[in-house]
């Protein structure tokens, strides 16, 4: 998995859905408390429990990148161990598509720095797993040949 993408449909016009994405009071109802403002360049934060194993102090640092009312909203989604450096560097983007009887909302969480190496690693791991299976098979055969457990 290299990016996150989810699409939802709501039986409401884009103006209603937009409110839930851009009004801090409404955002708190389903997402988190924040100091969000619907202004390009505005910096805001979300807080979730820290995860030391991922060098995460619990603060998600965001900055509004692009805002087109009722259509599109994107912000950075960065975090780190708390020393001012970011170990997670990503972007969250919301897109609204008006439909006949409602709104289709798409969320994309992308731009994870470093993802280009996941493919390489996956290929590598696949190769290792195959080899491990071969070794296990051989080991099992050998064991069964010499013991009667």
């Amino acid at each position: 998995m290299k990016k996150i993408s989810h699409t939802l449909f709501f039986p409401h016009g884009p103006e209603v859905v937009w409110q839930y994405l851009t009004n801090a009071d409404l955002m708190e109802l389903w997402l988190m408390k924040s100091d969000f403002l619907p202004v390009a360049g505005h910096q805001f934060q979300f807080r979730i429990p820290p995860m030391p194993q991922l060098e995460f102090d619990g603060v998600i640092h965001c900055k509004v990148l692009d805002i087109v009312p009722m259509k599109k909203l994107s912000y950075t989604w960065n975090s780190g161990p708390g020393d001012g450096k970011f170990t997670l560097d990503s972007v969250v983007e919301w897109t609204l598509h008006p439909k006949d009887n409602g709104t289709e909302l798409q969320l994309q969480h992308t731009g994870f720095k470093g993802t280009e190496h996941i493919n390489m690693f996956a290929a590598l791991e696949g190769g290792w797993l195959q080899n491990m299976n071969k070794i296990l098979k051989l080991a099992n055969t050998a064991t069964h040949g010499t013991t009667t457990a």
Partner: protein
Amino acid sequence: MAQPQLDVFQVIADPSRRYMLQLLSQQSLTINSLAENFDMSRPAVSKHIKVLHAAGFISIHDIGRERHCTLKREGFTELQQWISFFDKFWITKLKKLESILNQKAN
């Protein structure tokens, strides 16, 4: 001797280190044979290798007089953990948004 530990992202932000990982993804290499692929001094290559090693990307084995570098997988799993964590995070949050909005009258 101890150098500041860089995180996964800082480690692979450097193009030379990324290329080293690519080369090592095909086969294990000695530091000398790795260095042949780069237009930089041997100490500079060693420094990058130290960084890759400290971050858990590679392991180093001394065989005779040569130091052999092999790709390790620990460094790569952190990123996958992040992505799967936030995938679950968003699914939970979006379900909440869905239930709020679906209860709301048109």
